[in-house]
């Protein structure tokens, strides 16, 4: 009677109803964590030194809003410079021309090898190093002369400091992405008669994106917080704005909270954006796209309903 062909014809097997394994450890950990969470919430609201009233008062004041906008602008511009220049450097690094790849290597060596804080301060002082910048023949006649202070205001100096540093890290991230694409892809595209730049742009980079996006999201989130270093160059961004207020009212903690909450809000927003970009570039790499959080939630409800109706 134990033949394989019998199975298909036999009646549906009995449904399994077993006592599930108990997890007492889970309940213990829930209890411990719930206790700790309760203590945290209690102290946040019972200790008057937090001064939540001040947090609320200053959360959306003009100075803070102005600083917040500056922080977002710095982050966006520095990342744009970082990604664009980083991609160029990564492609240069993989060039067969040793001078080109060597220059890219030196760039990364220098900008990754010195602290970003030093670079920000350096670029904000660039006008002191070169008071005038000019267009002309190298070592020869100068046609136009600019005043560095006007050409490179503090904002531009800070953006350069952050962006040029970021490019060094992005270069390595993009290079790793390019190297992650199988060599067969380049061969197939070359065999079709495609040129090197087209192959890079149309075939390699889009596939490298899947590897490049997660660390780039990381870098963006990290950049949002690194912009606070611009305060050292007296540039008013979110942190400098809040610390300016706190030094005038002598209450540092509530204003640190204001800054932290704003940073958290925008790092959360960036995480969500990153999720959707990753999902976009997952096209073709998995048979089905990963679900969005809403789809996941909906699926859970449907499952619950099915179980309770069964």
């Amino acid at each position, binding site marked *: 009677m134990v033949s394989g062909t019998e199975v298909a014809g036999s009646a549906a097997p009995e449904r399994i109803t077993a006592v599930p394994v108990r997890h007492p450890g889970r309940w213990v950990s829930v209890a411990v964590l719930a206790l700790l969470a309760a203590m945290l919430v209690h102290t946040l609201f019972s200790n008057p030194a937090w001064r939540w009233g001040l947090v609320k008062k200053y959360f959306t004041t003009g100075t803070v809003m102005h600083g917040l906008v500056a922080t977002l602008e710095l982050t966006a511009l520095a990342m744009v410079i970082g990604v664009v220049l980083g991609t160029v450097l990564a492609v240069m690094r993989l060039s067969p021309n040793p001078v080109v790849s060597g220059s890219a290597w030196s760039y990364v060596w220098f900008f990754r090898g010195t602290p970003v804080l030093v670079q920000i301060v350096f670029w904000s002082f660039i006008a002191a190093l070169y008071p005038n910048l000019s267009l002309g023949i190298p070592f020869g006649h100068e046609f136009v002369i600019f005043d560095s202070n006007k050409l490179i205001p503090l904002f531009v100096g800070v953006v350069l400091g952050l962006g040029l540093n970021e490019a060094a890290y992005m270069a390595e991230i993009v290079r790793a992405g390019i190297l992650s694409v*199988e060599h*067969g*892809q380049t*061969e*197939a*595209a*070359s*065999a*079709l*008669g*495609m*040129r*090197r730049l*087209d192959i890079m742009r*149309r*075939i390699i980079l*889009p*596939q490298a994106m899947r590897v490049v996006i997660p660390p780039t999201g990381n870098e963006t989130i990290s950049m949002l917080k690194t912009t606070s270093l611009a305060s050292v160059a007296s540039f008013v961004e979110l942190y400098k704005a809040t610390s300016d207020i706190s030094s005038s009212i002598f209450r540092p903690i509530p204003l640190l909270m204001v800054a932290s909450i704003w940073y958290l809000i925008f790092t959360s927003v960036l995480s969500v954006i990153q999720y959707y970009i990753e999902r976009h*570039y997952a*096209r*073709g*790499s*998995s*048979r089905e796209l990963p679900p969005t959080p809403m789809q996941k939630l909906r699926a859970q409800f449907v499952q619950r309903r099915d179980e309770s109706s069964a």
Partner: protein
Amino acid sequence: MTPMVKAESVQKSYGRLEVLRGVTLEVAAGEVMCIIGPSGSGKSTFLRCINHLEKINGGRLSVDGELVGYRQQGDKLYELREREVAAKRAEIGMVFQQFNLFPHMTAVQNIIEAPMRVKHEDRSEVSVRARDLLELVGLADKGDAYPRQLSGGQQQRVAIARALAMRPKLMLFDEPTSALDPELVGDVLDVMRKLALEGMTMVVVTHEMGFAREAGDSLVFFDEGVVVERGNPRDMIADPQHERTKAFLSKVL
């Protein structure tokens, strides 16, 4: 008539390893040539030299009367520029053992990419041709599928359609069925037979003796970087002349 492919003592080495040690053979226009031989015999390398994916170190190799990778002026050879090499490759289709479809593009996008980028053809025109080609390879309903959603045999047939979209005058097949499950091999070979019947010039590196016998005009046995024997596939498989050919055929048949 100029042969489609003409190789005269082609030599290729990787460092000190000599992979091709003087390969001389001709493929006529419209001919289907199958190349067999043990692994490491240089048959795939030879195929890759034909569209300059590998640079040869010695001898002369030409396609349709023009040198591969070089231009001759007087008795001097000049290396071709990247643009010129690419233009020549565009006339030669190649199908790989691992398919190498572009995974981020659908079947149709895979097919229209090169005609659009390389030949600057109109998208709507090429798209129509892409659908026709998919029909030719029996995948009319898979145009919008991504490679991952296709079986190996289907992927390889899309890869053939992709190569054909460039209207090549010569098709190179590098072990096109070696990475496929046995039951999927037939569909791919059917497409290749169709092409052969339509008069496409084909050079096929393969282990499929059945295909070589039925569809091939000539059979070449490679061993240790040289052509050991060449002949009519049916005669050669039935009655190999050379000892090494006999030994090899007795193992694969």
